[in-house]
């Protein structure tokens, strides 16, 4: 994405909250004015003392109090406006990205590490909003302060302003110099840290094996070595980068001394036209003056990062959506006829299917059999419209699935996958995922049919136990929950993609009985590894390299003595 486009996108997301920018600018001007006027009035008051003019001193002190109060109030308001802007933009950007996740084709999601995309929603969005918007305010007030200080100095005593103007850039250059010197050490530090983290990750993730092999001491030795190397480089990296502030402060003190010198000479030379009080305010300005320079150089670095984050965010939001199904017909309660006509499909350049045909009548139980990578799971993807065909058509009840709404299509198909996935929530929420209106009895009946009831009861809070995908449930238990989840819905078509692969054979048998009951009168696709699951199907499609090489019943195929018979023998040879 080009920078101009990124800027245009940024403008787009900020526009709804543009009124906050107006407030931010107004408040920032007020804050800087107040902060600069305070030392000015303090100087006046001190002059009043010298002149012995009590009334003038009192007036200046009132002005000092008011300008300080105003600055404080507006500074608070500035923060509020600024936060309101940044956090609202952050919320909007996150929502936009999240909605995008819901409409992205699965092809996009499947082809990237999950962490990359969720990182955009969480940390990129945050760094963009906070870095850019909070940074912009800092930059703006910084520039205003510098301009204000120079302005006042110019108005009161331009010669001193000139002195200040000449010395200050020193700190800017010093900071740049240090940053460029630090870069290499910081990079080396990052490499060593990554190496140490990788080692720790490997060992901590397999901690049980580490302990089983009493490998703790050896690991500690290796870790200590890596840690020591990291410590030494870190020391240099941390020290170098922390030299910026002292150097800036030093430049600041040079400015201060120069102002004191020039100012004092002017007080003497002008015979008191340039007053001691004014000198005091000038010194106070000199103190406040270099800070913005520092901040600006920090902010500029942050901007680069924020823009990079924005680039990733908007690249995501510009990704192409799944083709819209607006205007598509809604599939009512489907009968369950499924046909594949000359289907062509591939994940990349290479075609997996090139002219695949199959006809499945409502209520039929069809098994898909074949070696790994032959395209069994791909059929599931096409039928659910997770992916769309690139040629030919997939039809349900005689209609191309691409002419139906996804919602209505998926409502008619129940799916259990080999890769179990559980949503963070209670067992109850998970079981009722497809039908929130199901009754307690229906839910428990489904859990019992899926042979999940017994272990659910043994969970600490039964059906109200909060579970998640990575937690303590075994693969088998998760799969039983996934089966129960579909049993709650009872859709007219079913896809069982290695649905019982993680379950032991005895439980599987019980679950199969429940499936048999559930599948009665329903169209059902079974992808299975174990041929025992397959034998009872009405029709077996034997797939190889994206083609259906044999079709028929178990007995027919065995008689045929072809690829199926070969697979069957290989699988059970040892038993």
């Amino acid at each position, binding site marked *: 994405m080009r920078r101009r486009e990124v800027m245009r996108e940024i403008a787009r997301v900020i526009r709804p909250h543009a009124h906050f920018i107006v407030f931010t600018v107004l408040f920032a001007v007020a804050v800087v004015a107040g902060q600069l006027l305070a030392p000015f009035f303090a100087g006046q008051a*001190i002059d009043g003392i010298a002149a012995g003019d009590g009334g003038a001193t009192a007036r200046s002190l009132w002005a000092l109090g008011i300008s*300080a109060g105003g600055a404080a109030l507006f500074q608070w308001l500035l*923060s509020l406006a600024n936060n309101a802007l940044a956090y609202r933009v952050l919320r909007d950007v996150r929502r936009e990205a999240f909605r995008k996740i819901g409409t992205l084709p699965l092809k996009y999601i499947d082809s990237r590490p999950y962490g990359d995309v969720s990182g955009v929603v969480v940390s990129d969005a945050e760094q963009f909003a906070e870095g850019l918007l909070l940074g912009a305010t800092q930059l703006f007030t910084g520039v205003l302060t510098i301009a204000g200080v120079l302005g006042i100095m110019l108005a009161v005593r331009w010669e001193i302003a000139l002195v200040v103007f000449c010395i200050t850039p020193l700190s800017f250059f010093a900071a740049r110099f240090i940053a460029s010197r630090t870069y290499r050490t910081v990079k080396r530090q990052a490499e060593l840290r990554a190496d140490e983290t990788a080692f720790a990750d490997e060992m901590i993730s397999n901690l049980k094996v580490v302990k089983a092999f009493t490998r703790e001491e050896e690991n500690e030795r290796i870790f200590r070595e890596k840690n020591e190397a990291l410590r030494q480089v870190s020391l240099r990296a941390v020290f170098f980068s922390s030299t910026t502030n002292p150097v800036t*402060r030093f430049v600041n003190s040079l400015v201060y001394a120069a102002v004191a010198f020039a100012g004092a000479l002017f007080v003497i030379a002008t015979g008191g036209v340039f007053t001691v009080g004014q*000198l005091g305010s000038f010194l106070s300005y000199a103190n406040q003056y270099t800070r913005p320079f520092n901040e600006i150089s920090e902010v500029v670095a942050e901007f680069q990062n924020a823009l990079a984050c924005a680039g990733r965010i908007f690249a995501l939001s510009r990704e192409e959506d799944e083709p819209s199904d607006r205007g598509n017909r809604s599939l009512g309660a489907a009968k369950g006829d499924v046909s594949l006509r000359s289907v062509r499909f591939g994940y990349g350049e290479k075609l997996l299917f090139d002219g695949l045909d199959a006809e499945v009548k409502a209520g039929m139980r069809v098994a898909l059999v074949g070696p790994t990578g032959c395209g069994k799971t791909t059929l599931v993807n096409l039928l659910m419209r997770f992916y769309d065909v690139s040629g030919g058509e997939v039809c349900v009840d005689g209609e191309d699935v691409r002419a139906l709404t996804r919602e209505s299509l998926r409502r008619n198909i129940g799916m259990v996958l080999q890769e179990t*996935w559980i949503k963070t929530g209670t067992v109850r929420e998970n079981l009722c995922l497809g039908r929130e209106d199901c009754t307690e009895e229906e839910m428990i009946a489904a859990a019992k049919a899926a042979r999940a009831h017994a272990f659910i009861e043994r969970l600490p809070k039964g059906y109200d136990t909060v579970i998640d995908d990575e937690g303590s449930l075994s693969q088998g238990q998760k799969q039983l929950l996934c089966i129960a989840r579909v049993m709650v819905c009872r859709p007219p078509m079913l896809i069982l993609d290695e649905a019982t692969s993680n379950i032991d*054979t005895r439980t599987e048998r019980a679950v199969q009985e429940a499936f048999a009951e559930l599948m009665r009168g329903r169209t059902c696709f079974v992808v299975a590894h174990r041929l025992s699951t397959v034998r009872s199907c009405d029709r077996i499609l034997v797939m190889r390299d994206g083609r259906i090489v044999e079709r028929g019943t178990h007995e027919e195929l065995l008689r045929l003595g072809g690829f199926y018979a070969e697979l069957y023998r290989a699988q059970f040879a040892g038993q």
Partner: protein
Amino acid sequence: MHHLRSCLKRYRTEAILSPLFKLLEAAMELLVPLVVAKIVDVGIAGGDRAYILHACLLLGAFGLMGLLFALTAQYFAAKAAVGVSADLRERLFAKMQSFSFSQIDEMGAPSMLTRMTSDVQQVQTGVNMTLRLLLRSPIVVFGATAMAFAVDAQAALVFVALIPLLALAVYGVMAACLPRYRRVQERLDGVYLSARENLVGARVLRAFRKEEDEVQAFDRKTEGLLAAQTRVGAIAAVTNPLTFLLVNLAAVVLIFWGGLRVDAGAIGQGDVLALYGYLSLILVELVKLANLIVTVTKAVTCANRVGAVLDASGERETVLPRGEREEGAHVVFEHVGFTYAGGGAPALSDVNVSVRRGQTVGVLGGTGSGKSTLVDLLPRFYEATEGRVLLGGEDVRSIPVRELRQRVGYVPQKVALFRGTIRSNLRWGKPDCTDAEMERALRIAQAEDVAAAKGGTEGAVEQEGRNFSGGQRQRLTIARAVVRDPEVLILDDSSSALDYATDARLRQALAALDCTVFVVSQRASSVRRADVIVVLDEGRVAGVGTHEELERGCGVYREILASQTEASS
């Protein structure tokens, strides 16, 4: 926090020197207003240009010395901070390695890693900043006050009134923000969870048509986050304006009072200027302090998370005193029961099995029947909550844990190989093993061809053993356990990816070894020829005996057999 302190103790010198040099740097700054007062009261009043020049050169010199002191301080601070974080990481790593399996389950690897990486990093920044600034700020504030007293004791009373007010303001804001920051973090975790779930669970959520519900739930979460951020932002934003206001109000009082003192002839105009200079110094310092406080609060939170890990007591070396050896079988389970921490029902109850040395034991049962749990009790991965487990006549809880595990070869269900070579992986089993021992182990594990395919034992192993197939990985992990020449070998469902012929050869080779072998499996065929088969059903022993005995007397065993042999009939 006491861990942090004890780590810091090792860097006591640095931790003392750093603030000390900061003190010197601050002293340089504190002298500045005094010099300015002299410029006004002596230089300007007397029209003495040379005096002014000298005074200003002095100011420059103070600046230079300040720079040198500051650099020294930064160096020591960096050394202490980096050292503390390195020590913390080392301690964390060691502590985590000492955790029991229950603790590992409870905490989870991702959480442990976050603590070791980002949390410790935050602590490092916190320590660094604290040494550099947190002490500097009070030094400047109190130093400025002390200098004010030196200028004029009466006017300095303003400072005395100001400081508690400032402290109260800063503390109040911090106390109000802390719990609210935590709430923001919790909400953010929720946002992250939603995003991740909608990626990982995209198929399921779409299949169940939850897209709209998920969007609404996400909208609620982001709205809640916005509200939480706005609230804490509004409070945190009070710090800077409030301190600015307080300091300037103090300036009003100071100048007014100072004016009276000048009129009374007690002090000069330059002195008022110096007093005002000290106030400005305090203000500049407080702005830095306010920013710092955020960093330090974060660091404290992180230090507590790190501390929670370090506070946990790891696995105990022995639980029971080592007693006399009892006569009897090699491995004995005696009325053994086990309940996972936080688990509802027991995972195992009343298991009684006894095995002679050299026998092969098959452990058979369905998903969640407690097979792995049973064998995990032997190397004390978990401790039996009831009854006892004996190895060689001793309760495993009385055998030092390292010794115990060295006597056991373990092949985990989840295959784990490590980056390195085949050789380095086998050395996990026995650090000083010879080439001959390695070859023997590979032969027994039917893994000679695996090594040969990679050009021998120097063949590279990628992380998680990704450059091997599932079956190859399983055979290598078996070789790794066999090379220990263990007294007991545990195979936890670890031949599932092997074809039947290889599996059979493997079982034959293992049977010839002089060690007691536990084979955990779902496949009846894998345990059929075992000397003893233990059949588990939902945590209870459904039967113990040989294949023939069980076939006659155990209903569950017959059911399992039927469910598996039917397929091949």
